[in-house]
């Protein structure tokens, strides 16, 4: 055990004093910052406004006047503010406050206002003929869409209770956004025209229609707190990401250091002092300390952030206990595999071929995370959380959703995890023993299995 400790501490020191490690450590916060800052900026619509013409045939003759006001830049601006406010109403208070203080930034993110010009066609124009207009080239103004208002759009047909709407014909290569803009504009114009036709008061109808969304309060035994759906949605991904990243950083270092020991021929010198199993145990424990360090740094950072936004109450701290437990199990499984691959190959290039399937398996739960969050207690989620080696990730994701799994499933997943870790380590140790002194041809999976049988 003393030797295992010595090896582990050397591994740990060698790993954390490596430049690559420090870079890797900073990589995740940088990636998150990039996603939070850069991506919305890149996705922010357009830098030039949408410009073009929308032709309208209004057989009712009752809608055009309203369309003229509902398709102006001022109307677009007003609707955009309304939409933003509606979205923000569902966001946590802290985010709402932050957004309110930067109304301008929200405005900027959405891009410049569209400049759509209304082209009024005669009420009895031939639709077929007008459609041809959409395919005409016009360098000055794009022919974007043709709106044909139904005859019963404002006043229902005799004996009917439902209203008609409109037909929309669009040019090819049209931005999706235009259809939304046209719909919003036509809808506003039609509603105004219908209200006028029924001699109702617009203001009254608006207030009749308006229902403020009530605040949702989550009630627990300890306290009551505002329900935070967005945060709840992000949490499972955060936990899966933490688990994945912590395992990758330790596992990768384990792999590269083992390959390096082999290629620099220091391995046999070491084997004169320790047994292969002691060496493997020391290396796995050393890198576990590295991964654990990374994990606690990130969790600490996350908790500090939540505290500063006064959102700490949203996290069930028992999740952290599960995080540590599932980290230990998942790490042991993957570290054993990474170590065995490192021992089997002669150089990193050869490791890539063996790594690809492992990485695919490692990424699987991450790919399925959305599906698990959507239905955490469905058959698919339950199955995934019981199948090694993805069970640890899947169960962590399920645990961090708003509807955690029954505790017997958690227990079963832990037992399955421990059993799979045991089997993996047993198998990896055999490959490790044989592989360390093998030089020459790069092994494939068949060779590894043969070695395991021979050992």
């Amino acid at each position, binding site marked *: 055990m003393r030797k295992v400790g010595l090896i582990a501490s050397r591994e740990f020191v060698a790993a954390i004093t490596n430049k690559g490690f420090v870079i890797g450590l900073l990589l995740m916060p940088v990636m998150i910052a990039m996603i939070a800052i850069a991506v919305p900026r890149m996705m922010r619509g357009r830098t030039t406004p949408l410009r073009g013409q929308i032709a309208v045939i209004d057989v009712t003759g009752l809608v055009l006047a309203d369309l003229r006001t509902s398709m102006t830049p001022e109307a677009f601006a007003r609707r955009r503010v309304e939409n933003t406010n509606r979205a923000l109403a569902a966001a946590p208070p802290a985010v709402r406050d932050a957004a309110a203080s930067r109304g301008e930034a929200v405005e900027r993110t959405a891009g410049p206002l569209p400049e759509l010009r209304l082209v009024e066609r005669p009420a009895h124009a031939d639709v077929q003929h007008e459609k041809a207009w959409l395919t005409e080239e016009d360098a000055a103004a794009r022919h974007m869409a043709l709106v044909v208002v139904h005859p019963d759009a404002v006043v229902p047909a005799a004996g009917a209770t439902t209203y008609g709407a409109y037909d929309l014909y669009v040019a090819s290569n049209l931005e999706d956004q235009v259809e939304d803009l046209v719909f919003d504009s036509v809808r506003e114009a039609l509603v105004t025209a219908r209200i006028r036709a029924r001699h109702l008061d617009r203001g009254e109808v608006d207030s009749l229609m308006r229902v403020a969304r009530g605040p949702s309060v989550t009630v627990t035994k300890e306290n009551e707190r505002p329900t935070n759906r967005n945060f709840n949605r992000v949490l499972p991904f955060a936990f899966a990401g933490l688990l994945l990243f912590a395992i990758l950083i330790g596992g990768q270092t384990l792999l590269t250091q083992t390959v*390096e020991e082999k290629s*620099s021929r*220091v391995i046999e*010198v070491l*084997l*004169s*002092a*320790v047994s292969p199993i002691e060496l493997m145990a020391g290396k796995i424990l050393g890198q576990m300390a590295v991964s654990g360090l990374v994990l606690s740094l990130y969790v600490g950072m996350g908790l500090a952030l939540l505290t500063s936004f006064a959102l700490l109450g949203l996290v069930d701290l028992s999740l952290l206990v599960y995080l540590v437990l599932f980290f230990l199990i998942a790490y042991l499984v993957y570290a054993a595999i990474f170590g065995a691959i490192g021992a089997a190959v002669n150089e990193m290039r050869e490791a890539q071929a063996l790594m690809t399937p492992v990485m695919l398996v490692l990424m699987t739960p991450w790919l399925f995370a959305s599906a698990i969050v959507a239905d955490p207690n469905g058959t698919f989620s339950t199955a995934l959380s019981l199948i090694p080696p993805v069970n640890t990730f899947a169960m962590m994701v399920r645990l961090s959703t708003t509807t955690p799994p029954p505790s017997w499933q958690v227990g079963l997943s832990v037992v399955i995890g421990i059993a799979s870790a045991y089997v993996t380590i047993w198998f990896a140790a055999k490959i490790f023993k044989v592989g360390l002194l093998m030089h020459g041809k790069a092994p494939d999976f068949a060779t590894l299995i043969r070695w395991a049988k021979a050992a």
Partner: protein
Amino acid sequence: MEPAVMLRAVRKTFGKTTAVESMTLEIPRGGLYGFIGPSGAGKTTCIRMIMSILFPDSGTLSVLGHASALEAKDRIGYLPEERGVYRKMKVGAFLTYMARLKGVSAADAETRVPGLLEAVGLPGTATKRCDDMSKGMLQRVQFVAAIVHQPELIILDEPFTGLDPLSVRLLRELIVAEHRRGATILFSTHVMSNAEEICEHIVMIHQGRKVLDEPMAGLRRQFDAHTILFEPLVLDADPAPIRALGGVEHVEKTGDGYRIALSPAADPASVMRAIVAAIPPARIELARLRLEDVFIRIVTGGGGTGTAAHALRAGLRMPDTEGTLV
């Protein structure tokens, strides 16, 4: 006291290749053994089995009284043929690490390492990174790593490979010094002149089998007396009378003289007297023992001529890969 190393009928195969066959060997405590044979003879496989890095298919072995070297690792110093260092570690830190893995306390390791570095001619290099050392210097560092814990048994696999003649001499002195300290030493080499100089006992191995297991002193008695180097006073003297002498097996022209191989039964003294009587000598002497000759004689079962012997000699010298100092 039980021997330092004991192998009984050990056999090891890799797939269809038999690397070691019926290997029985006993190295007493305090011995200085040379394990010699051409590349691929099975030396490294034997050593790895002694070190419990490989395990025999059949047969038994014991190391320092244990069934496996794993139980006595801290009492064994091992310099493998495939050896390396942590390139990014400092020399001192690497040696301290190795010493601690071998059970030396941190304090002892710290004090012992600088002294040993000085002994191998590398004073003040403890703070250098292994990266910054030359290959020859690293070989010496690795030797220190093998002896830093003052082991009872030292096993060196091809320790002279890749060394310049001066380093070879230094390493030989270090090996002798460790032997004098009381350590049992087993080293392998395919360059036999290295073994001739320092070994007390020779084990020859060829195609996985032991072909010789003799003390150097006995070898000298057994093989020395059977080759005579003769230089006639008159250079173009006819060697026919020598060939005709009883006990002479083979006469070979060598530069200015002849190399005369005797049959095992011949009495060298009377043959020498007869040669001198037949042809006036400029110089006549018994040839100094060359392990290479012994080996080839055993393996080819004859006087060491022919293409098979020639190929063997080439494999035993390989001056490009191993420096020799004669």
